[in-house]
């Protein structure tokens, strides 16, 4: 894959990130499967680290993925504690959806605000407007550039079921929040946040972005990639390292579970909404009743008012659910698909290497083989000297073998790089997943407690008002003889 290395000349490390300490065992955050999979210790890290430096030094083109200054330093800093939010130096928000009408189409743009202290950025604040297609483009580019990194998913194009109107407020709001989360995940990613495409996305004017989009690998080279990817996946990989098998298994199960939870969360939202609809009838019915009564007017109106207030609280609760938990679960269901794709791409790279190795082996055999009778006869039929022909053939083979060996070298680097990138990003993703899901569930539990607390207060105050009333009434009513 011949990717032009963007930002290739900028090797001077003018990054503003603090120096990253080589990960020591104490700093390695134990995550779920990583303990078993990742036997990283200092030596391995350093070894790989130094190897890569020689490969990328001087800005030479390489088949490995682009490396930019900050990623070089941060590359194996995946094991940083989550407290690296303290050193967060880029803040992105997505808000303010607006409708744009042209003669051809109508679409929504979102305002993207960036605040940053990074030196790659000329200014410290940027404000641009982007549409969903732009986000799609960005993500595509990031995936292309980093096939074995885990890029956060985007909200889907269009929800078919549930009859969501493409331009309904709810849909736009949900999408806006999801886009915000997407950008934030990208901006937090040590490697992805350094992407030139991201920078252009965040800073360029509309026309600049359009022209930038036109650059990059052309149609033909992308076609080539696709063909090779398909060929590789058809071939399949033979010796997948155990840790990636474990990842595969995990992703399958995780994907299933999260999808279930996604469905459950959506179902709960639906049930709550239907419950709310029915509940709304209660208050007015009590009010209606109070119209026929005398003594009971106060308690009836009280109950009606309590029910109305509970309805409001329920509305709030439902909104919280649909704004936070449900979308998060949905995103991680999409993540599972992303992970599967990443694993597939890694497999493909390894499959390519295996294929080249096979080819090399075949050629070597050819080289050692005795020239066959038939081959000689054929050559002499063509009027060539058998000995000359054989030498020509040997020469050609040698050339091919050398070329293959070079390719294989590069591929081996690529495979190693891809594997390490994935391993590292896997841990980062696991941490991020844990953080996001925990926070979403905690938030849901909090909001539910909130709802019940508010309703409790409502009913308790009603009770207090009635009890004092009733207290007096009872004294008045019951005669002293009893």
């Amino acid at each position, binding site marked *: 894959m011949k990717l032009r290395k963007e930002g290739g000349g900028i090797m001077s490390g003018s990054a503003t990130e603090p120096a990253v300490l080589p990960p020591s065992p104490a700093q390695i955050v134990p995550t779920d499967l990583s303990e078993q999979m990742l036997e990283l210790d200092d030596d391995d890290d350093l070894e790989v680290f130094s190897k890569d430096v020689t490969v990328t030094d001087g800005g030479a083109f390489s088949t490995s993925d682009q490396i930019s200054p900050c990623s070089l330093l941060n590359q194996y800093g995946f094991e940083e504690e989550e407290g690296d939010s303290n050193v967060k130096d880029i803040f992105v928000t997505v808000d303010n959806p607006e409708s744009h009408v042209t003669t051809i189409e109508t679409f929504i743009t979102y305002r993207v605000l960036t605040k940053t202290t990074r030196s790659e950025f000329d200014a410290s604040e940027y404000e641009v407007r982007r549409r969903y297609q732009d986000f799609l483009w960005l993500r595509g580019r990031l995936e292309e550039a980093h096939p074995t990194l885990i890029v956060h998913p985007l909200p889907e194009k269009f929800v078919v079921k549930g009859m969501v109107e493409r331009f309904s407020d709810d849909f736009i709001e949900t999408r806006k929040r999801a886009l915000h989360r997407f950008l934030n995940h990208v901006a937090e990613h040590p490697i992805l946040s350094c992407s030139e495409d991201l920078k252009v996305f965040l800073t360029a004017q509309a026309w600049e972005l359009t022209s930038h989009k036109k650059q990059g690998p052309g149609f033909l080279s992308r076609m080539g990639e696709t063909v090779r990817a398909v060929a590789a996946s058809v071939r399949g990989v033979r010796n997948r390292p155990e840790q990636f098998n474990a990842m595969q298994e995990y992703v399958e199960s995780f994907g299933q579970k999260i999808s279930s939870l996604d469905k459950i969360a959506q179902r709960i939202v639906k*049930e709550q909404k239907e419950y709310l609809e029915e509940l709304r009838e209660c208050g007015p019915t009590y009010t209606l009743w109070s119209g026929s009564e005398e003594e009971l007017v106060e308690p009836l109106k009280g109950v009606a008012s309590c029910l109305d207030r509970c309805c409001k609280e329920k509305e709030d609760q439902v909104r919280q659910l649909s704004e936070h938990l449900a979308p998060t679960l949905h995103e991680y269901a999409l993540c599972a698909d992303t992970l599967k794709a990443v694993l597939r791409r890694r497999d493909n790279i390894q499959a390519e290497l295996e294929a080249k190795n096979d080819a090399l082996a075949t050629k070597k055999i050819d080289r050692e083989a005795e020239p066959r009778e038939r081959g000689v006869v054929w050559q002499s039929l063509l009027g060539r000297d058998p000995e000359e022909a054989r030498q020509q053939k040997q020469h050609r083979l040698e050339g091919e073998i050398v070329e293959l060996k070079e390719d294989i070298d590069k591929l081996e680097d690529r495979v190693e790089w891809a594997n390490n990138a994935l391993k590292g990003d896997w841990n980062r993703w696991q941490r991020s997943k844990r953080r996001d899901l925990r926070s979403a569930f905690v938030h849901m539990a909090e909001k539910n407690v909130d709802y019940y607390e508010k309703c409790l207060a409502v009913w308790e105050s009603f009770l207090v008002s009635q009890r004092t009333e009733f207290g007096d009434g009872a004294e008045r009513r019951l005669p002293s003889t009893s």
Partner: protein
Amino acid sequence: MRTTAAAAATMADSGSGDIAVTGNRDLAAGESGSDAKNTTAEQGTTLLKTMEINVAEAEKRTGKNAVNMLETYTVYLIETRPVDTVSEGISPTPDSLWRRYSEFEILRNYLLVTYPFVVVPPLPEKRAEFVWHKLSADNMDPDFVERRRVGLENFLLRVASHTALSNDKIFFTFLTEENGWKEIVFETGFQAKADSRLKALNATFRVKNPDKRFAEMKHYGDELQSVISQLLRVRARVADRLYGVYKVHGNYGRVFSEWSAIEKEMGDGLQSAGHHMDAYAASVDDILEEEEHYADQLKEYLFYMDSLKAVCRKHELTQFELEMAAQDLSSKKQQREELATGTVRTFSLKGMTSKLFGQETPEQREAKMKVLEEQIQEGEEEVKEKNSECDEFVNNAWCDIERFKDQKDHDLKEALISYAIMQISMCKKGIQVWSNAKECFNKM
């Protein structure tokens, strides 16, 4: 359903008579208060002051019915015990007998006919109505049977605490004599005394001067029936939806448990959170069962409205009969006048025929006059009688209606308070479950 004070105190049903007695003491006290206003009522004692009544159990029986077919039905055990023994701390075995729902119906119909001025307590519903999906509409369903048992007990307690009703011999026999009661009650001939529907309807339409208060009461009865029916329907739908919400959370429990198997660090938190989700889902059963009690309290007053309206209709009937008698009397008087003066002011066939065929002889006329005078005298007595009947009815009925109004206001207010208490309890449970869940999630 227990009477109100008890219901507010505990939601759990208990068969102990103590609570019942306490609850009804309120009523009894109230009644003695209102009875003091009523000069014509009997002394303010009620059966409940001397006797403790329980409907303790329900049982299934199979037997042959009137058409010799095998049927399954439920019988209820009525236990009675003199109050003195309870307060003295002695608890002898109560007397008891078994009755089925149809016998309660007969008793009630008897009371309706015999005490038309009383707002007679209703029986629990014959078939489960206003159901939401969980509750089966089957009469044999144990929940339904249990709620009916409570309702029947409530009926007996209400009757036993009413000054007029509780002193009725038939009622007493119902509680104490298992066999032969049916024969005794039918011997009273109460079925024949019942006013026909047609008669009552006729009176309603044609009565000229009913007491306005009764008309208002009838109107109120209609309104209350309408609004309570609506409330019960809404409540049933809400209950159905609430059930759905809680139960879906049970799915979280299942999936969390499965998910925790593939996670290392998040596993424990997920697993324990899952347990809380299961607990949350299960908690709705109790919540809705409590709400059924509330619905039953509303239903009682829904059905009470029929009795209330019946009393009002009875007034219209007595008033109508009075008016008919008065009208009859005045027409007879008018005939007498015509006969005496010889003028025919009103058209009558007789007048016409006598005009056509000649006048009557003086002897004939005198005979007629005599008959008329007799009739008029009878008529006047009847009007007097009907008048006093009507007055008596109005007084008694209005007195009972006032009693009923107080009871209704008291009971329904208690019901609303108990509803608030239920909501509070539900909220507290919710807070607990979700706080626990939050702790578990934090450990994820």
